[in-house]
């Protein structure tokens, strides 16, 4: 049976009690579940709950974080819908920042098909959704910034996740 770690709720409650401003939090990767110091390669899994409206009016919460051991391939689904989430990992080493684009969980397009093989795209809106980020862990990662990108507002930072 699936269960959320009680510590998730505790940590989130702790953030609120400490007066953490919405849109920021701090993560210690080496203390995440499954982190294996013997593994040379790690994959970071971040799960954000997003509510509100695209364009900078989102409320973002880090719902869960986890680490997998191993390498992932550079195999991302391209995102072309004008409204999307841009994630930029930043390093305190010379590792190159590479932006990643994700569908916006509150406003994205979906392909709809029928048995005859015809397809079309439909725009889907939601009041809340999940943004899932899987990314390789490179040394020196000190923060991950999320931007809400819309044609109306451009790119607006909506969340910063710092790493210890």
């Amino acid at each position, binding site marked *: 049976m699936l269960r959320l*770690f009680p510590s998730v709720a505790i940590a989130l409650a702790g953030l609120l009690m*400490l007066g953490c401003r919405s849109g*920021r939090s701090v993560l210690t990767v080496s203390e995440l579940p*499954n982190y294996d110091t013997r593994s040379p390669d790690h994959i970071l899994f971040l799960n954000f709950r997003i509510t509100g409206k695209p364009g900078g009016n989102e409320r973002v919460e880090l719902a869960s974080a986890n680490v997998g051991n191993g390498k992932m391939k550079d195999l991302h689904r391209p995102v072309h819908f004008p409204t999307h989430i841009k994630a930029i990992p930043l390093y305190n080493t*010379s590792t190159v920042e590479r932006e990643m684009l994700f569908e916006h969980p509150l406003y994205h397009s979906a392909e709809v098909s029928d*048995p005859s*093989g015809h397809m079309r795209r439909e725009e889907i809106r939601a009041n809340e959704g999940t943004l899932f980020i899987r990314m390789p862990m490179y040394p020196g990662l000190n923060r991950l910034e999320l931007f809400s990108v819309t044609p109306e507002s451009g*790119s607006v930072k909506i969340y910063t996740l710092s790493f210890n």
Partner: protein
Amino acid sequence: MKRILTTLYAICITAASFGQQYQVDTLYKTGPLDNRINVVILGDGFTEGQMPKFAAEAKKFADFFLAYNPYKRYRNYFNFFAIRTPSKESGVTNPGDAPDAYKDQPVGNKDTFFGTSFGHQIHRLVEVTKLDVLYGLMTTQFPTYDLVVVLANTDYYGGSGGQIAVHTLHKDANTIGVHEIGHTFGHLSDEYWAGSSYGMEAANMTTNSDPTTVRWKNWLNNPPIGIYKHGSDGDAAKWHKPANGTCLMEYLNQEFCAVCSEATVERLLELVNPIEKFEPETGGRVDVAHNNTFKLKLLNPDPYTLQVQWRLNGRLLPFSGEEVILKSNEVPDSASLTVSVFDSTKDSRRNEARANRTREITWSLKSSAPVEFRIASSADSVCAGGEVVLTAFGCPVVPSWSTGENGKSITVKPGQTATYSATCDLQGSPTRKAEAIVKAMPLPNATATNGGPYTEGQAIELTATGGVTYLWRGPMFFASARAHVILNDAKPEQAGLYEVEVTDVNGCSKTVQTEVKVDPILSVPNDPTVLLTVSPNPARDYISVETGLGGKSNIKLYDQAGREMLSRIFEKHTEIKLNVAAGMYLYRFTNGGREVSGKIAVQ
């Protein structure tokens, strides 16, 4: 003060974690995870008792996928797994409230593992609602997955794409998964017109309609590939596609067109190396007196399209198999043995394919046979001006070079393709000569610019052109791989020299620089009565400057190159006639120790 500084506690948010392990069925395991595309199939709405049905459906989809061209020819390049996640109830949720809901489909909620549901707005849009559960499962059970497909346990038609592909068990729904994987895997565009927002340059979409330069020009003699407009008017008429109703990226009842197959295969061969193993190791020199057998283990497509070439000191050997046995007395000392593997698949006609994806292994050899007089080059081709070291082997005296130098090795920096020769003149023996050609490729025509000068708080814009990849470096550990970079909320310490390494399709790089100026706002008055007003902005022939600060004030105007264009000392208010060219200017206002900077546009 930013509140973040007060919240930097060592807070660790732990994850949703799975105490339970779920059975992972291996459907096809053709090789190691890091050199295969790993497809994971999940099921939703299958109860514990229906796990055999799920296993059969998962296998069915894997077989369907692997029978689909071009995947069929590369089935050994994929691993397929299925994870058994039993649901409490059989079937998936049908809210039944969408206008296109099926009349004969029972309505109702189902308690399933991933909460898969038909759509509320569009019935056929079948999506996973418990994405956190799905990703949590993948995190713990299979973190190195590449592609995920979810099978929804219902026979009614439906599915969706996105980071994961979802489809039902309807007989026509399985192509949804293949189409969606086409997006993820081959970065293919849709070939039906989805709207202006989706117009983009891709392997199978372009605004270029010139048959001599269009991206799929090599396929134009292969009907039905052509250059087809997406539509007859509007934006649709500006975009082109290679097929017209005959590609899976347009209709799900079609196969991939040749252009989409090509993009898919190229991506596959980029991710998976056909050289699985080789022997012996390449670390040191291999003594051919003791070890004269060199082996490859290749990952073979079906049909076999790999071209294997073995070269000794650059000379092609008459072997094309996975193994070569050298005769030690025929191998000169210090020789090098190279094997190259290239997939000559007819699925791809890309001009640069051979250069881009020929994989090579090189062994350095040791032998008791006399050394052959030859020139070894550190590179066959080099970007113009790049260094190449030429080394002569097999001459017991100091050889002389066509450059006029003498020595065993020389370093050359060819600006264009050139032939170099070395002469070995041993007294009492015939003079021997060896040649080496070094190809020089031109450097990219690179530029780097920024939109400054800036004042503190503005957004710095950096733009580079002339290449296919970019690598920026700059103050404050700045690094980026984007052509166009925006750095919000500029700080004075971000001022300085930014340099970008621009690399073209040949891999040739040129580094260019741009200097960013960020002027500090040393003092921003809090009192509204002392605010500085510079108006109008944009200005035409004059500007009015007004301040609430007492005493003498000074305002200076600078152009974008930082040149001072005018200066005026005044008290409280002044009007300045402008006699400058149209453009953006920076003003700096000072009053005592206070300073304010800003930008003003002149039309």
